């Protein structure tokens, strides 16, 4: 991802070049909407929430400066904060790899020049489009409920089901399944990537007598590591921010026993149920730091396993 990007941004800007006022003016006029939006809706709020995170603020009275109290309370004493972190990490660490493996697996099968590829691709992609909606979360509640679809099907095989949504042991798993179910969008990206792998490499390998397993590990896998990496970063960032399904499935509480208390949900509860806006802002900053950390970690680790090959 990175190398492609920098390769491209580099080309137009020649070092040491002076910009004329006219160029600046034209450029900034075109950039103006984005620039205003960036300052008003992104940068400003980020800084404001940094400030708020050091205050006590209930939306009705003025913010009151409390120093690092919120951070201290969060990191050392708030058991629900720890719980929401652990729920979110469990969710990210299980759902993202599963989702990517399924996506890659199906993409590999589809990439073998299978007939009806557009059909399969479309059908597999469909859940990715619908999955984030309230309607699907509602559906999920019914599928995994006590009288739900899953238990009805299990009953056909003579298996007595349980309430998957109602038990803290399984409630989170249903949300992981919901996420993995949306493997279509990384799959489409994998498919686009697999198309780039030059056929000549396989032909050469065939001549050398390599079997398909060897071909996969020696050719396909290394060549698609950049795509894998891109998907990994993208899916991780979005998984960290999951909200709607947990909200709908637990009625906005994180129940049962906080087993679906996603980090986003806990921020919402603190901010908009208990009106601890400063506290919620501190939580948001911690999330920002966590995501930045993981993204940097991802990029750092990528040197060891992502194979960029030569730019073409």
């Amino acid at each position, binding site marked *: 991802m990175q190398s492609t990007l920098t390769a491209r941004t580099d080309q137009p800007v020649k070092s040491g070049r002076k910009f004329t006022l006219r160029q600046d003016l034209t450029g900034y006029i075109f950039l103006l909407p984005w620039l205003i939006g960036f300052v008003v809706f992104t940068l400003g709020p980020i800084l404001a929430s940094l400030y708020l995170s050091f205050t006590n603020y209930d939306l009705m009275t003025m913010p009151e400066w409390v120093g690092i109290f919120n951070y201290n309370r969060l990191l050392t004493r708030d058991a629900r904060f720890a719980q929401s972190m652990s729920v979110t990490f469990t969710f990210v660490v299980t759902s993202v790899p599963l989702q990517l493996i399924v996506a890659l697996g199906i993409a590999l099968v589809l990439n073998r020049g299978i007939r009806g590829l557009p059909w399969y691709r479309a059908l597999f992609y469909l859940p990715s489009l619908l999955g984030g909606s309230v309607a699907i979360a509602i559906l999920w509640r019914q599928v995994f409920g006590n009288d739900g679809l899953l238990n009805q099907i299990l009953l056909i095989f003579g298996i007595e089901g349980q309430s998957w949504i109602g038990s803290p042991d399984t409630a989170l798993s249903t949300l992981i399944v919901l996420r993995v179910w949306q493997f279509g969008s990384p799959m489409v990206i994998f498919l686009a990537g697999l198309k780039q792998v030059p056929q000549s490499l396989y032909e050469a390998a065939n001549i050398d007598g390599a079997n398909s397993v060897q071909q996969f590990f020696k050719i396909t896998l290394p060549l698609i590591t950049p795509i894998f990496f891109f998907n990994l*970063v993208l899916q991780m960032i979005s998984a960290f921010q999951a909200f709607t399904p947990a909200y709908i499935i637990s009625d906005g509480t994180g129940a049962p026993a906080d087993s679906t208390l996603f980090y986003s949900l806990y921020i919402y509860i603190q901010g908009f149920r208990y009106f601890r806006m400063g506290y919620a802002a501190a939580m948001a900053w911690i999330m920002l730091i966590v995501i930045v950390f993981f993204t940097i970690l991802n990029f750092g680790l990528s040197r060891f396993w992502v194979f960029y090959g030569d730019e073409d």
Partner: protein
Amino acid sequence: MTVQRNRSLSLIPKRWPIHLMLILATVIMLYPLLWMVSSSLKPETEIFESSGLIPSQLTFSNYVNGWTALQTPFTRFYINSFIIVIVSVIGNVLTSSLTGYAFARLEFRFKRIWFSLMLMTLMLPFHVTLVPRYIMFNELDWINTFLPLVVPSFMATQAFFVFLNVQFIRGIPRDLDEAAAVDGANKWDIFRRIIFPLSMPALITTAIFSFIWTWNDFLSQLLYLNKTELLTVPLALRQFVSAMDQSSFGQLFAMSTLAQIPILLFFVFGQKYIVEGIATTGFKG
């Protein structure tokens, strides 16, 4: 070449197990959706009795009754959702393209810094801006208007769309710009006459994704809209769940099914652009 052909030939008889597997996977994946649709067509009593898809009798009463079950008919919620979605789509398309052009084609000071900042917002968790934005909109008296939901889209706040357009515009041959410049066209003319029309595929992708994401959006609508007459489809569905008995689950499924139709339509007609859009941002294009 010969090797390749032999390989595919020898595979043809073996192909049916793959198809079988894929079809099976598709059915499993889509079963919950099919169950939802079929349940919405079943009489109330039948939904939780069987996991089968074929209703004993086909009834549309769930749709008719569900539409008005919240006293304010769903017509209002669909109008609200469509207003928000259409205005957002227009905003995203116009400003993402404009910004994309600035980043891809124009030269100005600090461009690289702005560009990296823009890329960074791709991975910015929404939580960080959540509370201050709410406070800001509250101060502006914008709560219970659609403004907090549509105004940001006129400022290219969705980095994904900007990035998509930057990537696409970079792929448009510079010769066209230069030829126009020789003819005396200024930057605006170039954007208007060349870049904007030529980046239509990227704009369509932007429009489609912007439609789908705004349609599915829940949290910001939940925060900013809390009067019945302003509710959108997702908010109305959520209220449906909390206010109704299980005996009206057929209606709930009916309304959930309807809520998917706009997305489904976009999906059917815009599939090509969705896939291309993903591939464009998915690098190595």
